[in-house]
């Protein structure tokens, strides 16, 4: 009676490829964002302090500049959040459901897409550090003290890993919030309320020590525990968003 039988895995893979083809602009947006960010913030992210060292006859003076790509990191995370949100839009759903899918393969394809985009975001953001070093070298008389791929490979890769993990986390946060809001617009109010409670009250600060949600991640010094925490959070968010997605009606007037 019917000929075609797909496995969930196979279809999720095909939906993922379809999503990559359809959303290529998401990646170019990040590149443009990073270029703009580097050009605009490259100088401003520099903090300068002058130290003077006096030893009887010799006066030694040097400029100490710290360059960081914190700005770009912020931009990438912002991008990640927006991307997560965008993928819950009705247009995205309709596109997927034009072809073969159910809500599980749709969710899995989105997740694969997030993993790819997060890796892309993580690698490019860390590599942007190298670009900034080149910028810094244009300044004359510069001695650079830096960690790179060759001097400390482990550091380099852990940077990429952590950046990727944060990007993935932010994407899933955006995706989960978006899913709930697609389910019912009332969630906007709820989320706004939660946001105000978390940021405007001191209820969650005990003994002057902030134990907020963010500290749960960036306060972690062990990479193993950090990985565990991220995995846990991603699993919770994936489950919560799927709980909603699995109920969503598509092409609903």
């Amino acid at each position, binding site marked *: 009676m*019917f000929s*075609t039988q797909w496995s969930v895995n196979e279809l999720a893979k095909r939906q993922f490829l379809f999503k990559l083809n*359809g959303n290529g602009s998401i990646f170019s947006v990040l590149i443009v964002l990073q270029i703009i960010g580097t050009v605009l913030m490259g100088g401003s992210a520099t903090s300068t302090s002058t130290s003077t060292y006096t030893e009887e006859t010799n006066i030694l003076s040097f400029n100490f500049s710290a360059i960081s790509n914190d700005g770009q990191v912020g931009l990438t995370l912002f991008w990640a959040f927006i991307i997560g949100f965008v993928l819950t839009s009705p247009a995205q759903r309709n596109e997927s459901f034009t072809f073969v899918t159910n809500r599980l393969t749709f969710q899995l394809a989105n997740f694969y897409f997030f993993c790819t985009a997060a890796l892309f975001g993580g690698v490019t953001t860390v590599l942007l550090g190298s670009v900034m070093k080149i910028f810094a070298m244009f300044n004359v008389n510069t001695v650079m003290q830096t960690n790179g791929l060759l001097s400390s490979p482990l550091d380099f890769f852990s940077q990429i890993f952590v950046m990727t993990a944060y990007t993935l986390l932010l994407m899933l946060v955006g995706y989960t919030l978006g899913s709930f809001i697609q389910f019912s617009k009332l969630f906007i109010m709820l989320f706004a309320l939660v946001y105000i409670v978390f940021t405007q009250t001191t209820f969650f600060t005990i003994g002057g020590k902030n134990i907020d949600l963010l500290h749960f991640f960036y306060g972690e010094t062990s990479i193993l525990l950090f990985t565990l925490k991220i995995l846990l959070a991603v699993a919770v968010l994936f489950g919560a968003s799927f709980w909603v997605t699995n109920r969503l009606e598509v092409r609903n007037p």
Partner: protein
Amino acid sequence: MEVITLRDVTKKYRSFKVLDQITLDIRRNVITGVVGRNGAGKTTLMKMIAGFTKETSGELRVFGERPFNSLTVSANMIFVDDRMGFPDAFKLEDILIECDRFYENWDDELAKRLLEYFQLPLTFKHRVLSKGKRSTFNAVIGIASRCPLTMFDEPITGMDAAARKDFYRALLKDYIAHPRTILLSSHHMEEMEDLLEDILLIDGKGVGFHGPIIDLQEKFLSLQGKANALETYATRYAIIHRSMAGPLTEWIVDNEYSEAELNELRQAGIRVAGVTASDAYLAMTGQAGGGVDDVFNAMERQ
């Protein structure tokens, strides 16, 4: 063999009941025309069968499975309408590649030839197409994907007369070569009459009629004659619809007359004729000319 079965299926949008307690079977490899007035629930029914929306109550089975979240149903079904979503960045050729990825029976050559015939360049983006061209493109996707269950929801929206004719012709030709179950909804019943085997009439939140198109035609008779003659002789069975056609009055009545009764009518100067399926449909849904006249007649009398 039934492809789609519904048992007491009800669909509500919040508290508004769109379909109420529908029970019907769609047989395999039959072209069924889904007709009904605006807002009757044709699209709702088809979206439910496609698994896009969930039935509120009752039992709905497509290929023996509940369509909501069924991969089997999704893989063997295509739902074509003028609001099919494709990524903005996609050119028509990109969409064809995706169709090939997802539909096992996809005929790429047929799709390309049809698009060439309908003058749809593959390098165009889907979102820049005009309304008629977009409908044509979507219809071509529906034909070339050769899904065991193919649903067209008002596929001819915006198409010109020639394109409509070509679409029906292409659909019929491909159906004969590759039989499949087709649901086709449209308001232009007279255009698709030749194509259809079955009619499914959705009326008043339920099934008004479901069966072979010939049965629908034979349900009614058209009686034409002077108004007083009709009033005298033809009131025996239910009158579905009355209309004025020049000096003569036309009634569409239930076809329950015996041969002797028909002869009696003929002797009274009443012309007895069969009705076309679209006339029968219009009469059943109260769409035939004359209905809205009553509004204006009533206003003149005041």
